[in-house]
């Protein structure tokens, strides 16, 4: 049942992409670069973030002023700030589409579980970065975020109170609160890079760049809104006044409407359940036992073609001494093998094969398939 729904979703995704192919052409279809698009936005965020970093002051007194200074006084400061905000939203959209596509097209489990797990962690980090980013502006909304978050954190049993104290950086809101948010915002951005490395593990030649044309189009989709609808701060935060309501960013701040409408413990439980489900998803479908590709010692000449073609870095060349002529031997790392047969297609010496679908049998079958007199079937 579950599998059938997934199959239908896969067909739906592929038909949708076929349609986008007509608009963008195969070469520039953003869905064929679904991993590279968030990457482009991430680097945009790093670059614009660096520019903002130069002028931002993380203290209660000057945070709001320095952000406004960037917006109003610095040449193009407005655009840089806008790009930073809109690229963050665009990155979240792109990441969610990336995750959905991977899920619908059945490319998240088995040998890909590391990518799925690191992806879940990446989304978690993005949420923390987004929330702390909104605190840095230090307008009424930022103040509310700090209050609500500290309150919600305190309600987690055992680890809650110290976490809240860590988040506020002390008993109450001081200059250090902003310093902590600033640290989390920038520090976890670098953690993203480490997680991305995990995300790219076991993938040979990951597609990390979009073609120039698509890149320009995507950049325009952030720069134009940044220029037309400039990002502005709300009213400055005043620590004695608790603001009644504030505008929500539905990509990063969706937690806060939840916090205000139900007890924090329920929200945390829901989050915990969602994470558990996400982490369990790659193992919901049980497959036949693995039968990774096997190298035939006698036939391998060490030509490296299979190692070059393997899309999952599962084949390595090692030196060999048992043969008078050939100096290298291909070995398969079983855990990484996807059983896709690309190495079989690359081998001209019948030296590597899938045990389940042996190339010799396939070649023998070709004769049989053709032998049947036309019309019998």
């Amino acid at each position, binding site marked *: 049942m579950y599998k059938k729904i997934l199959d239908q979703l896969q067909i739906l995704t592929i038909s949708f992409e076929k349609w986008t192919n007509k608009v963008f052409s195969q070469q520039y279809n953003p869905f064929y670069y679904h991993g590279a698009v968030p990457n482009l936005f991430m680097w945009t965020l790093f670059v614009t973030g660096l520019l903002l970093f130069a002028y931002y002051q993380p203290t209660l007194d000057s945070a709001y002023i320095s952000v406004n200074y960037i917006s109003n006084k610095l040449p193009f400061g407005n655009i840089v700030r806008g790009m930073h905000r809109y690229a963050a939203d665009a990155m979240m959209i792109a990441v969610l589409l990336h995750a959905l596509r991977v899920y619908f097209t059945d490319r998240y489990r088995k040998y890909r579980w590391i990518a799925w797990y690191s992806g879940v962690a990446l989304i978690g980090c993005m949420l923390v970065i987004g929330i702390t980013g909104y605190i840095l502006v230090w307008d009424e909304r930022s103040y509310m975020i700090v209050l609500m978050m500290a309150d919600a954190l305190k309600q987690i049993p055992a680890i809650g109170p110290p976490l809240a104290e860590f988040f506020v950086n002390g008993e109450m809101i001081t200059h250090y609160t902003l310093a902590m948010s600033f640290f989390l915002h920038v520090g976890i951005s670098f953690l993203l890079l480490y997680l991305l490395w995990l995300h790219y593990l076991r993938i040979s030649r990951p597609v990390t760049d979009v073609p120039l044309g698509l890149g320009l189009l995507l950049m325009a989709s952030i720069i134009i809104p940044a220029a037309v609808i400039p990002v502005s701060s709300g009213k400055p935060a005043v620590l004695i006044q608790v603001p009644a309501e504030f505008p929500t960013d539905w990509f990063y701040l969706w937690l806060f409407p939840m916090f205000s409408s139900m007890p924090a413990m329920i929200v945390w439980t829901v989050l915990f359940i969602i994470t558990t489900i996400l982490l369990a998803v790659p193992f919901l479908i049980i497959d036949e036992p693995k039968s990774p590709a096997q190298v035939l010692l006698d036939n391998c000449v060490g030509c490296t073609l299979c190692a070059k073609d393997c899309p999952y870095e599962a084949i390595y060349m090692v030196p060999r001494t048992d043969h008078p002529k050939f100096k290298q031997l291909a070995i398969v790392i079983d855990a990484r093998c996807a059983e896709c047969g690309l190495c079989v297609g690359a081998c001209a010496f019948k030296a590597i094969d899938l045990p389940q679908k042996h190339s010799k049998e396939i070649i023998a079958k070709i004769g049989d398939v053709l032998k049947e007199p*036309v019309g019998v079937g």
Partner: protein
Amino acid sequence: MAGKKKKILGIVCERSVDLKKHIKNNKLKDKDNVSILEMVCSGMIQPIMIEEGLKAGADGVFVMGCQIGDCHFREGNRWCQDRLLGLRPPNIKKAIDRNRLRGYWLAKCDYKKFIEKVNKFEEDLNNLPEKETVKEPAKAGA
């Protein structure tokens, strides 16, 4: 040979056009002169398999994979396309008549387009001169 349908062999990725419903005894139900051999991925297709198909009596061989850019195993269809174009080793033998080879890159729900392409291929094969088996080096060895 006149009037007789050309034999066509299709070596096909099981994730591209969904042929499971359209195959019986390895033949297409709609066109019984087309034999289909399903593979895990078009990237698994060895040039030997294509050569073997022509040697075993097929008038033409086509290879089908998913749309370029969308391979379940990331790069299989691109490698296969490059091999057909002669850009990536192992190469297809020079003696093989390239007019008898085709590569199609279609998505799962493209059955109509697939049949159109196969019909076109059959028409092209009909317009080709008779297959010269003498040129096959394997024939000389036998």
